[in-house]
């Protein structure tokens, strides 16, 4: 994984609450055996009509969304299935972070392992972001802060280990493998 220290971008706002992973990537696209190329199917049934044409009124299809790397979404983003295809699709599309007032557990865990930043902020900050689509914000991953255009700096919660892995580009499997001796001892103790 590449180290991630800072993300700077305009925001694209999807104000709906409880956006589930079936919306992020519908189940019929999960027959793939690869993790590549899923951006084409991101929010598929919200982005495209039954005729395959883009729905012009969907936020990601509007010209203002071009190049945005930060999604601002409603409460409880990523609920539902454990499919890691959800963060894979978001990343492949070009998004690098989501900001909400709550992010579902499994989606958050999957996101952190792929370098997609799940950021939870308080309601006041969230309301401001919802009301100001396209705001230029930056995320300082090392400091765990979101910097608003006013210069206000909002601290967001993140597990220290996850933050360390993101900033250093560390693969968590490597960390587990370093504990081979402890794992072996644990197994021996149970026999």
């Amino acid at each position: 994984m590449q180290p991630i220290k800072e993300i700077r971008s305009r925001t694209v706002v999807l104000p709906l609450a409880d956006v589930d992973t079936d919306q992020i990537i519908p189940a019929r696209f999960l027959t793939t055996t690869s993790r590549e190329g899923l951006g084409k199917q991101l929010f598929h049934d919200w982005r495209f009509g039954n005729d395959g044409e883009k729905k012009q009124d969907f936020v990601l299809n509007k010209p203002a969304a071009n190049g945005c790397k930060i999604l601002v979404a409603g409460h409880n983003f990523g609920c539902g299935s454990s499919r890691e295809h959800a963060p894979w699709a978001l990343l492949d599309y070009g998004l690098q972070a989501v900001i909400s007032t709550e992010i579902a557990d499994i989606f958050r865990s999957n996101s952190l392992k792929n370098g997609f930043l799940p950021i939870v902020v308080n309601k006041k900050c969230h309301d401001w972001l919802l009301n100001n689509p396209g705001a230029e914000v930056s995320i300082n991953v090392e400091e765990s802060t979101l910097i608003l255009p006013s210069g206000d700096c909002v601290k967001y919660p993140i597990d220290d280990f996850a933050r360390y892995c993101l900033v250093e580009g560390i693969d968590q499997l490597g960390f587990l493998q370093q504990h081979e001796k402890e794992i072996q001892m644990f197994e021996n103790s149970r026999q």
Partner: protein
Amino acid sequence: MNKSASKTLFEKVWSSHLVKDETPDTPAIVYVDLHLMHEVTTPQAFSLLREKGLKVRRPDLTLGTMDHSIPTTPVKSFKDLAIVGQGAANQVKTMEDNCAEFGLELLGFDSELRGIVHVIGPELGATQPGKIIVCGDSHTSTHGAFGALAFGIGTTEVGHVLATQCLLQRKPKTFAIEVNGTLQTGVTAKDIILAIIGEIGVDGGTGHVIEYCGNAIQQMSMEARMTICNMSIEAGARAGMIGPDDTTMSWLKGRPRSPKGKAWDQAVEHWTSLASDRSAEYDRSVTIDGSAIEPMVTFGTNPGMVMPVAEEIPASGDSGFKKALNYMQLTPGKPLTESPVDVVFIGSCTNSRISDLEQAAKILEGRKVAEDVRMLVVPGSQQIKMQAEEKGLDKIFLESGAEWRESGCSMCLAMNGDTVPSGQLSVSTSNRNFEGRQGIGARTILASPLTAAASAIEGSVADPRPYLET
């Protein structure tokens, strides 16, 4: 016992699996006793092992099956199964190849033990109290009904478990949900869990492991308990658990992978000790009057948008609520029971066990599915299919006009060709009523097998209670 020594079921299971405890800087390393796998969330994990030249650490603790993308159309031989779509065919083949290459047990196409991963674990007796069980599937919470700590993981974590048998985890919080009282006629575990999700919300359990307790839970069968724990994830919880008791032991006794002889006696002693201590404390708790719960149905596009079947659809000014009702083509203030139904689905890891099928059959026996309704009955496993056929349930379903299928996830998530056409209304015993979950534009109402069967007969959303009066 002083309070500090009192532990919850979750804490007992958690603390006995710590290879290394968490610190402020690092998560805990927890050991996994059983790793279940299916074809959808594993291929990329095996690719990673191959890239890194790694082996599977404990093939003996790893068990695979195929359930999501396989067809459920009835055929004479599994060899004849035509898999719907090249992607699905490739995925199933990839699962076979991966399990062969890494030396893993696969209950594949030809196995009589094949079925939905969360149905076969318990059925085999592989799911046991006190275990940590994981699977690349959010409904892994089902296995918590046995007093296991069971939760869904992503594909990267599937790779971690394959390679190290361990996971990095922060300790979740605990949440006690106590359900008391005698359930009304026509009210099942499905209605209870839908009512709970309605009460605490689809994010009510985020960051928590739920323990369901109270006399209504104690009186439930294992199958009903599995239905309850299954939908813990729909309340956002990491897992759901129920303390092991005599019901648990009786269900497990004699199963193919349950301990035998002296080992069984030792296991029972250990399992019994896992129940939460009387004075154990939880981070959060809620008490629910089970006797007040009625048959429940969803009306929106998440499982928290739920109401008693006989009531009117509620109203709200919330834009998300309006969007959901617009998608569902439903109107606030109207009864849901006026809505014509196109499809009825009995199946999924929530409600596809033998007692679910028996409940549906009880209502359907001697009656006909309404002319314009397509009804699918999909057993949770090939073993359940055989049991149902021994009991003659297949004949009841077929004579009523329903389709009787092979096992699989089927119309719960519609990735195997079993789909609800766009715009059609489905009454489904599955777990998610998300937009498009059962097919593009499909409108899903979640309900119990009783409510689903009654709706199939009436051709509209129906209260099952009139069918149960003696």
